[in-house]
Structure formats: structure tokens, C-alpha cells
């Protein structure tokens, strides 16, 4: 069951939450809506679910090529998981999960025995077999979220929508559940779309990432794609750490202090201000300047972080540079606090005001 959104605009009073947004999530995929607060990702999710209605005349929501815009939420067969679980506090875990089955009209309602079986299956799926008679108040946050997921899956939705499902949990539980969700999706294969502001989460879990900002989609791609080939400065900045250097365009180069980067297509932008964006692991350091230009900097801090070494450098002008190198590399150069090193980008992007190079 694929999800398609075509030209959706949504305004709340004077605030435009979604600007002409279009998106396709292929059937069976697990996609992430990633972006900062206010980017419109939750609004988009709710529009897909029918919990918000797009501005009149502004576009369509299609499930498997069928326009569902007219259908009320209860008829869209979406499983929705809320950030704060929204479990029915006065019902047991069993009653929560079976709710969607018991509200069906008599004709389509399964007999009690079948319902019981189904709930047991789902409890096993979310690994909460012995919790059927507990109340939500007796469960931990992680357990409650799993019940919410089981409840949504019980109605065999064609689409699963999760709104920051792990946002209310602490870091360790978040990590565990993140991997668990991925495994679950691999088992169940329902087209799923989840909202998150945590880029690590999106990069680890999703098949496809939709980066959003201020009501617009900035880029759609695989995690590899959006991380290594960001479509624009926003995506580059949002995903992962990045160093920013400021300089100017001179002839065919962008010059940043003693560093010059080839930018053949920028002839017309002579004298313009340019920004160089490099990820920490795309910088290489050496004990000598080298033939191509490089920046001189002093090692300010050395931090061993698992498989890599994180270095914080400081140039004479006071700019801080983050570099990541392997342990081997760090040993080879005998890097210590106060050492002078020379930095050069292996791979980088230069941005001149409006266009990237």
C-alpha cells in the first residue's frame, strides 16, 4: 500500500505549516520524516492520517493510487502511534489492543475467540506476553509504546504512521526500541512513515529519509544519499556535524586563508563571499603544509571516542575546527594538545550565497 501526497498546503491561521508538499512512499517501505521543530513533519503525518485536513482545493492524499481525502480517519485504515502513547488508561493492555477489533460493526467483528488469539499474537510480537491484564499506569514508557504499536497493528492497517514514537523515552530505551522497530518492520512489512527530529534515528532505521524544513521538502533519498550527497546547505548542516569556513571567490578558486579550493564554474561570482562546508571525517591532517594549500592550526583538545579520535583544533584567528581521524592516523602523527598541524579537506562543498558548487 503506497502512500502518495500531492501538492498539499496546510495553513493554521497565518502560519503556513506545509507549502505545496508532494511525496511518494513506495509500498512496504519504512520512511522517516526528518526535520527541526516547526518543519511541518508532524502536520504532514496528521494530514495523511486525516487528523488534519489540507487547505481546500490544495491537493490530494492517495493510498495505493486511491484518493482518500474525503474519508474520515476512522475509514482510512491507518495505524497511528502518538508520541505520548494515547493509551486508554481505564482499560487493560488486552482491552487496549483489542479495541479496534471490538468497535467494528457486528457484521465485520471477529468472534471473541479470534480476537483473543490475535491479541495474544500481537503481545508475542511486541514481547509483552504476560502483560495482558496490566493497566498502562503499571507499565514503563517503553512498554507503553509497544502496547500502542500493537494496538495500531491489531486492525491490520494499510499504513502505519508514527509521530516521534520514541521522543518521550530516555536515551537507552530509545536506542533499543529504534532497532526493535526496524526488526519489526522487516517482519511485518507494512508501509510505515515515522516522524523524528533525531537524525541518528532516521539514518539508522529508515529505508528512505524525507528531510523537511519550514513546510517544504528539502531532499528525499536513502540515508547514504542524504548524508553524503546533500542537496543543499540545510540538509548538509542538519545531518551530522559540519565545519564552516568563510572566504571569497578569486578567479577560479574559493580562497579561505591559506587554503584554496578549485571552483571552476564560479567565474561570474568574483569577489563574492563563499562558505566551505566540510564534515569532520572529511578533513585530513598532516604535520607539514603539503603541496596543495592547507590551514595551519593548533591542537586544542584530543578525545578518544570509541573507534575514532576526535580532535578539536584552533586556528590563529580563533576558529575552531572539528576533525575525526582513526586511532592509527592519530598515532602516526603523534597528535597531542598544543601540536601544530595542517588541515586540508578531502571532500567538501563550497556555497556562494544562492547556489552551491
Amino acid at each position: 500500500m503506497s502512500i502518495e501526497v500531492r501538492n498539499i498546503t496546510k495553513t493554521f491561521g497565518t502560519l503556513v505549516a506545509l507549502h505545496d508538499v508532494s511525496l511518494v512512499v513506495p509500498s512496504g517501505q519504512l520512511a522517516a520524516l526528518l526535520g527541526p521543530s516547526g518543519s511541518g513533519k508532524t502536520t504532514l503525518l496528521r494530514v495523511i492520517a486525516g487528523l488534519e485536513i489540507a487547505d481546500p482545493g490544495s491537493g490530494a492524499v492517495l493510498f495505493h493510487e486511491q484518493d482518500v481525502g474525503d474519508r474520515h480517519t476512522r475509514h482510512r485504515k491507518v495505524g497511528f502511534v502518538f508520541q505520548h502513547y494515547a493509551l486508554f488508561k481505564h482499560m487493560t493492555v488486552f482491552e487496549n489492543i483489542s479495541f479496534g477489533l471490538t468497535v467494528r460493526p457486528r457484521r465485520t467483528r471477529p468472534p471473541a475467540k479470534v480476537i483473543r488469539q490475535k491479541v495474544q499474537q500481537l503481545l508475542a510480537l511486541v514481547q509483552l506476553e504476560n502483560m495482558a491484564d496490566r493497566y498502562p499506569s503499571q507499565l514503563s514508557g517503553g512498554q507503553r509504546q509497544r502496547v500502542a504499536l500493537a494496538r495500531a497493528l491489531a486492525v491490520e492497517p494499510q499504513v502505519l504512521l508514527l509521530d516521534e514514537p520514541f521522543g518521550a523515552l530516555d536515551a537507552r530505551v530509545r536506542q533499543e526500541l529504534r532497532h526493535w522497530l526496524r526488526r519489526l518492520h522487516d517482519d511485518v512489512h507494512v508501509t510505515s512513515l515515522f516522524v523524528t527530529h533525531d537524525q541518528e534515528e532516521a539514518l539508522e532505521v529508515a529505508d528512505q529519509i524525507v528531510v523537511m524544513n519550514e513546510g517544504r521538502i528539502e531532499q528525499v533519498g536513502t540515508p547514504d544519499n542524504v548524508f553524503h550527497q546533500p542537496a543543499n546547505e540545510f540538509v548538509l548542516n542538519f545531518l551530522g556535524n559540519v565545519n564552516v569556513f568563510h572566504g571569497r571567490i578569486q578567479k577560479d578558486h574559493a580562497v579561505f586563508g591559506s587554503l584554496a579550493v578549485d571552483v571552476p564554474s564560479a567565474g561570474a561570482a568574483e569577489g563574492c563571499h563563499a562558505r566551505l562546508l566540510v564534515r569532520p571525517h572529511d578533513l585530513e591532517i598532516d604535520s607539514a603544509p603539503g603541496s596543495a594549500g592547507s590551514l595551519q592550526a593548533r591542537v586544542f583538545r584530543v578525545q578518544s571516542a570509541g573507534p575514532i579520535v576526535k580532535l578539536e583544533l584552533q586556528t590563529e584567528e580563533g576558529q575552531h575546527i572539528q576533525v575525526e581521524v582513526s586511532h592509527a592516523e592519530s598515532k602516526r602523527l603523534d597528535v597531542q594538545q598544543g601540536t601544530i598541524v595542517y588541515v586540508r579537506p578531502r571532500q567538501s562543498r563550497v556555497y556562494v550565497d544562492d547556489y552551491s558548487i
Partner: protein
Amino acid sequence: MAGTIALKNTQAGSSVATRPAIAELAWVKWLLVTVSLGFLGVFLLMPLAAVFVEAFRKGAGAYFTSFRDPAALAAIKLTLLVAAIAVPANCVFGLAASWAIAKFSFVGKNLLISLIDLPFAVSPVISGLIYILLYGLHGWLGPWLVAHDIQIVFAVPGIVLATLFVTFPFIAREVIPLMQAQGTEDEEAAITLGASGWQTFRRVTLPNVKWAVLYGVILCNARAMGEFGAVSVVSGHIRGRTNTMPLHVEILYNEYNFVAAFAVASLLAMLALATLALKSFFEWRSRRPLGAAPPCAGADASAPIPVEDLSHEH
């Protein structure tokens, strides 16, 4: 408990109204609103309107003449006197009880709170009865009072006591929860700065609870002036001497003097409306950030206030 709502900030319900998935069908909304208006119209507005319509049935002249009756004037005076005694007395009690209960922790605190609520559970007639049993001619203290020529029941003191009983909890139960929620930090700070207990109470505690106190006071006053059942039992109904306004209304009505009865009743109704207006005002005022609440220590006054997020973004 109902009727005396704690002054808390309630969220606007309008956010639910804009969520399409959980909205009712238009005709359902219409039906519910119509039923509500009908119910409130018949049970609330009609009796209120009736008071004024009947009071002016024979014209404005007859209305104002009702107040020239000396018995009516005496009743008004007595009502005011009783309120003037009962409200401050219960106010002092309420503040003292709140201080003891909210600022300290001791055995039996919850029992004390329940006991303070006791008069609410007692029917007004019984509230009057108990004072007759205690101070009446055949009561416990009856003989002693007769011997000392002190008249309590069937006289003003009895009326005051019965009124004190029925209005007993009003101020305390508004102030206690608020003081409990506010804790003891402000007061402890004041003490460490050298303030005496009384100074602390007057300059730190009191301003913090002033809206709750005012709220309790107007409710207490409304009840004190309007109490009927309890006062009816202890007063002896001596016209011109032990009749409060509600009792006077009863006498006039039973004499078929309807216009006069409703005229006096209209004064009481206006008091009720003023009470409700003040109540709404205090509730509105207590929601605004009051000067008494100091800003967080170290907060940057020029820091940008986060914009209210309308689109459910986190």
C-alpha cells in the same frame, strides 16, 4: 468540591474544536447546545427573571415603597450586621487554619482538613437545631444562660453562631490548597532575612494568596447574607428584631404580600449576581501573572519568548 472551584489555570478547550477527526456532526452539536440552553433557560434564567418580574408587577412605586417598611429595614440591618461579624471571623479562622495546615507537617492533618469540611455535609436545619440543643432553654447550657440572663437562641447571638457554622469552611477551603501548593520556601527565605512571623505572614504569605482569600470572602458573604434554614430555626422569627432578609421574605410571602416579598428578594438576587460577577473577575485575575510571583532567579529578561507552536511540532 463543587461550587467553590479552586483557582487553577484551565486550558482553552478550543484546540479540540479544530481537530476534524474528533468533531461531532453539525446537527449533533446543534442539538446538544439547544438542550443545554433549554435546560439552563428553564432551571436557571426563569427563576432569576421571575424575581424581578414579580417585584415590579405593581410598578416601580410599589417596589420602592417596600423598603420603607421599618421591619424590612431592620431585616436589612440585621443581615448586614451578621455578615459583618461572620465573614471577618471566618476569614481570620481560615487564614490561621491555612497557616497551621499548609506550612507545617503534623499528625492528624488530614483529619483536621476533613473536620473543617464538616459543615458542608450538614443540612441547614440541622445546623440550627444543634445550637438550640446547646444554648436553648432545655439545652446543655440553657440553665446557665438563664441564670446569667444571656439570650442566645431566638436572639441575634444565635443567628450569628448559626451563620458562623454554615459559612465556616468557605475561606479555609479556598486558601488551604493554594498555600499547600505554594510551599514554604518564600516564608523560609523571609525568616532567614530576619523577618518576624507576623511580618512574614503579612508581607509574603498574604499577598500570595490574596485572590483565593477574596474569592472565599465573597462566597462566604453570599452565604452569610442568604442563609435561611439554619437561621430560621434559631431566630424565633421575631419581626423587627430577629429577622434577617431571607426570613423577612418568607414572612411577607406567607402574608401574600408578594410584591414586597419579591422586592426584598430582588435585593438578595442582585447580591447573588454581584457575587457571581466578582467571582468571574477574580478567576480571570488569578490567571494573569500576578506581581507577587517573582521571576526565576537568573532568567534573562531579554531572552526571546518561545513562539506558541500551533502545528503540533515538537
